[in-house]
Structure formats: structure tokens, C-alpha cells
């Protein structure tokens, strides 16, 4: 009995150690974390969809708490929210900076408190170890504009409605547009105006363009939310067949318009996907992930195969990831993001 009792004790010890490692490992795998999201605002439909997508990712994770706060367009409030999250000792802070320089002191406080930082949609170079989640706006918009120009057989008059000077995303897309049109000597840019995030303003701008210019062949809009206003102006003027339009962000409605031919192409970022993706990145950082300084969201062009074949026949040679409108509609309505991190 004595020799067996020793064996039993050893077995019990071994089993205990195995079980304890298992529990520790499991705890590390699903560590409960809390992340703070500082948004420019939570009224624009895009940002609201981001939040909805982020909430889906939170639910899917199961061990994550996401706190969403709106800066309501105020830099002072944004700084205050970051500082509040530092006080609350959250496990990661994600910021959509209104002004990349103004938020740096608040980011420094988070850094000193050991809280990982993410600047969403903006590349912010600081010594605070922040990750920038980015979209390939400049490259993607350059390709989107190329698609438009090749669709127009590399000649014609185009107009552009961008967002707002100083907004990083808008500036990148505008830069992409300007770089692309330079490649087409027979494409003339008639006008470039800021439509911000207001579809009624975009409608008025497009009406002004239609008044001022006798012939417009193409329109590039920076964001789906305002594209609908511009399209309404074109439709009212009876020029849907004459003016070809491209837009950006891949809303469900815009994908339907690509399918019906009202849009030549769109670029799926997907507000819900962006929200879910940022939350996943934040959660990964909160759990100790080591990520590159720049993390890019996979984006896809929404385009009909026939359209793609046409522009390729006209000279478009870029290697792009593309999907059909039906696929885009499915993805845009969900928060599915093909991104993971190596543990």
C-alpha cells in the first residue's frame, strides 16, 4: 500500500499541475479586457454603423467590454475623454483624432499609464507606441479614379466632391484622385469642391456644376453618404446616362447602385467592418499583442465583372481585390472582418 500511495500522490500532483496550467492558459486566452473608443461623433450614419459593428465584435468576443464616447466634434472634449479613460484605467484606448497634434499630450498621459493606444483611420507618428489602423485610402482612391478614367476611355471632363481639407481620410482620398488624373492627359478636372458629410450640400454642389459646365462626363465622390445627394441632382437633370460616377465606402445602397449600373464602381470599407476591425485590434493590444505600427484594413473594390473587363481592356492594369455587388451587400451588412493576430 505504501508504494502505491507514493504513486497516487505523484499522480495527483501531476494532475493538479496539468489542470492549473490549463486554467492559467485559458485565462490568458480569454482575458477580460475593457477598451475605450473616442469617436469624432456618434451622429453621422457612418460612425453609428461603426459602433454597431464594434458591438457585434464585442459580443462575439465574449470577454470584452467596449465603451463608446463621442467628442461631438470638439477637440477639447476629445482630449477630456482620453484623459477620462486613462483615469478609468482601461486596457486600451482607440482614438479617431479630430486634430492629430492636439491629442498628443493626452496620448502621452495614456502612454505613461501603460495603456496601449490606437489612432483609427489616421497615421499619427508619436513616440507613444501607438498603432494606426488605416485604410489604403490614397492607393485605393487612386485606383478608383483610374477605373473611372479608363471607363471614360481616358478622355473627358470630370468633377470631384471631396470631404474637408484637414481631415486625414479626405486628404488622402483627394491626393489619390489628383495623382490618378495626372496620368490621363485627356481627362480634364473641371472643379473640386468640399461636400463634407452633408448630402444636401453635395446635391447643391452638383447642381452648381451642372449649371456651370455644359459637359461633365464623370464624377468622383469621396464618401457614399453624400454621393446620394449628388446622384439625385444628376438624376433630376436627366443625365444619369451621360455622367459616370464612382464613390467610396461600400454602403449596401451603393453596392445596389453598382449592380444597377448607376455607379461604375465603389470601394468597400464598410462602416460595420471598420468598427468591428478596430475593436478587434484594440482587444488584441489590450491582451498584449505586438502589432506593426500601421495595420491595414483589407478593402475590396465593388464592381461588375463586365465593367472590370472593360476598364482592363482600356488599359487598367492594377492588381486589385474585387467583389461583386451581391457579395459586397452581404459583407457590408455584417461585421465580418478577415483579420486576426498571431498570439
Amino acid at each position: 500500500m505504501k508504494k502505491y500511495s507514493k504513486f497516487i500522490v505523484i499522480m495527483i500532483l501531476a494532475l493538479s499541475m496539468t489542470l492549473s496550467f490549463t486554467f492559467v492558459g485559458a485565462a490568458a486566452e480569454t482575458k477580460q479586457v475593457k477598451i475605450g473608443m473616442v469617436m469624432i461623433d456618434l451622429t453621422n450614419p457612418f460612425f453609428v454603423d461603426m459602433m454597431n459593428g464594434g458591438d457585434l465584435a464585442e459580443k462575439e468576443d465574449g470577454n470584452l467590454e467596449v465603451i463608446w464616447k463621442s467628442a461631438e466634434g470638439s477637440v477639447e472634449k476629445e482630449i477630456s475623454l482620453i484623459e477620462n479613460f486613462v483615469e478609468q484605467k482601461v486596457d486600451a484606448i482607440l482614438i479617431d483624432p479630430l486634430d492629430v497634434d492636439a491629442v498628443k499630450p493626452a496620448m502621452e498621459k495614456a502612454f505613461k499609464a501603460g495603456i496601449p493606444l490606437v489612432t483609427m483611420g489616421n497615421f499619427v507618428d508619436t513616440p507613444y507606441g501607438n498603432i494606426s489602423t488605416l485604410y489604403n485610402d490614397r492607393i485605393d482612391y487612386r485606383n478608383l479614379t483610374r477605373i473611372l478614367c479608363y471607363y471614360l476611355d481616358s478622355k473627358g471632363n470630370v468633377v470631384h466632391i471631396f470631404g474637408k481639407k484637414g481631415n486625414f481620410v479626405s486628404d488622402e482620398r483627394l491626393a489619390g484622385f489628383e495623382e490618378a488624373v495626372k496620368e490621363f492627359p485627356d481627362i480634364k478636372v473641371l472643379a473640386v469642391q468640399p461636400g463634407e458629410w452633408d448630402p444636401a450640400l453635395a446635391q447643391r454642389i452638383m447642381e452648381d456644376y451642372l449649371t456651370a459646365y455644359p459637359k461633365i462626363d464623370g464624377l468622383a465622390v469621396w464618401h457614399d453618404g453624400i454621393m446620394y445627394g449628388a446622384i439625385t441632382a444628376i438624376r433630376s437633370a436627366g443625365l444619369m446616362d451621360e455622367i459616370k460616377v464612382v464613390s467610396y465606402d461600400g454602403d449596401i445602397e451603393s453596392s445596389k447602385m453598382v449592380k444597377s449600373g448607376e455607379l461604375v464602381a465603389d470601394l468597400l470599407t464598410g462602416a460595420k467592418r471598420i468598427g468591428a476591425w478596430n475593436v478587434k485590434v484594440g482587444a488584441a493590444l489590450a491582451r498584449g499583442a505586438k502589432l506593426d505600427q500601421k495595420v491595414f484594413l483589407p478593402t475590396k473594390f465593388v464592381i461588375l465583372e463586365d465593367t472590370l473587363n472593360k476598364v482592363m481592356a482600356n488599359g487598367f492594369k492594377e492588381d486589385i481585390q474585387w467583389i461583386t455587388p451581391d457579395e459586397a451587400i452581404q459583407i457590408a451588412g455584417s461585421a465580418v472582418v478577415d483579420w486576426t493576430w498571431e498570439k
Partner: protein
Amino acid sequence: MVENVKSVTTKNNKSFTGINFLKNYGNVLLLVLVAIIMVFLNPRFLSLRNILNLSKPIVPTGIVALGAMFVIMSGGIDLSMGFGVSLVAVVLGIVYLNTNSILLAIIVSLITGVLMGVLNGAIITKLKMLPFITTLATMSIFQGLAYLFLFGKMAWVRHPFTVFLGNGNIFGIPFPFIFLLIIYFIGYLILNHFKLGVYAIAIGNNEEGLIFAGVNVDKYKFYLYVLSGVLTSICAILLISRLQMTTPTIGGIPILLDAIAATIIGGTSLTGGKGSVRGTFIGVIVIILIGNILNLLNIDPNYRDVFKGMVIITVLFFDRAVNARQFAKLS
């Protein structure tokens, strides 16, 4: 009584002098000047197609400006109109999405406009709060409600009736513009032939005198804010009809500022007692054309706001200078 009030408000404008001409037609001269600049910048400006195109953005601003005119000439102000448009737009979208009935959506939208006006009017007349503070507060309420109700989303409003309302044509003339002319005609009748309009000017001129004369000034003030609310809701319905969609970002500060600027350029006095439907209509056209010119020149929108502000200050200065000169002449 109405006729006596009218004669008091108009008797000083009858004699034809240079000053009176500038006072009464200065906004027309400004419009002519702006039009000349437009022709210079864009030779196609005077073509029929362009005039018809320009007639569309005039409509929403024009309707809000008419409401602003009535309130301002009575010595008040309604800062809630811009976000009132947002709120009504959202209400229309929600009702339409949930009932698929455009008639019900429009009726509920109009009722919302009335309620907004009732709220403003009641606070100002019953609680004796300053119009500026009251409508500043209700502006914030309407903005918040607009975002809360739709929660930042977009809603599509596509119905044959609203498509026609916003984008239809009758004999080639955009229907919204015809609708605007009808609204302005009604506004003209109210201002010149109904107690509400005549008392609006009289209240702005001499509120105490009217009270001593036994007029229920609070009642008419209340109705003016209700009228402003109704016009706000009509603007929202037309805006949505034009866009065929609604978001809480529709309306807001830009349309409010344009409307107030238009009424001032049109000759409505910020201190009350003066204004005209014709002047407001001209003021709306001037504001829209200024925006159009700046678009054509690809000018940064921030400079647009600076420029508009300068135009308003110039008009106010001019108006004050002419009034001072006229007063000196009479005395």
C-alpha cells in the same frame, strides 16, 4: 384698426427720394450687381436651363427665410429653425418607413412643425423668456431629438408624390419653385391683408403702444412662432423630397444662417418693425447666387462664410446709414 396700423407703418415710405429708393430697392440693386458678376463669370448664367437649375436650391432656404422674416419683423428671432428642419426630416422618414404612408408622414411632419412653434411661442409669451435664449435652447432640443430618433442612420424616402414634389416639372418649370412662389404669395397676403402680418410689423415697431391700444400682442406673437414652425416643416418636407432620403445632418446651422442672412439682405430689420415678402425673396436669390459664385470660383467654404458675413454687415451698415440720414432730414 388694421388699416390704421398699416398707415402708420407705411406712411414714411411714400415720398420718392434717392434715400427712399435705396432703402426700398437697395436689395434689388444688390441682386443686379450679383447677377452681373455671375454673367461675367459664367456666360451661360442667363440661359433658361441655368436659371431653372438655380431655382431649385432657392426653395428650402426661401421657405425658412419667410418664417424668419415674420418672426424677426415682430422683434423676435427663431434660432431653432435649422435643427427644426432636421427633426421634422427625421420624423417624416421614421413615419414613412414604419407605415409606408407618405400622406401620414407629411401630416405628422406638419404637426411636428406646429408643435415646435407652439413650444417656442408658449415659452416666449407665457413664461416671458427672451426669444433668443428660448430658441437657442429649443434648437439644442430639436437637434438632440433628431439624432436620438434616427440614431444617426439614413432613411430612404422614395414615393412618386415626393419625387414629384422635390424634382417634378410643370411646363418645364421645377415644381418646387412653383410651390415656393405659391408659399410666398400666401405670405404676401398674410403680411398685407391679415391681422397676423400687419400686427407682426406693428409689434416690432411699437409693442407697448399696441398693448395700450388693447391688442392681444402675446396671441399674435404666439401665432408667429407657430407659423415659423409650420414653414420649417414645409421646408423639411421639400428638402427630403429633393434628396429622397433623410439623415439628422440635413438642415442645421447652414440653412438657418442663410435664411436669416436672406431676410436681412431683403430689408427685414433685426430690431423689428420692417420687412417685406418681396425683399426676402430677393434676399434669398442673392444668398444662393453668392454661394453659386463662390462655388464657381472654387473658393474654400470657410471663406464663403466670411464673405456672407461681410455682405450682411455691409447691408446692415448701409441700412442704418440710410435710416439715420432719413431721420436727420425729417427732423
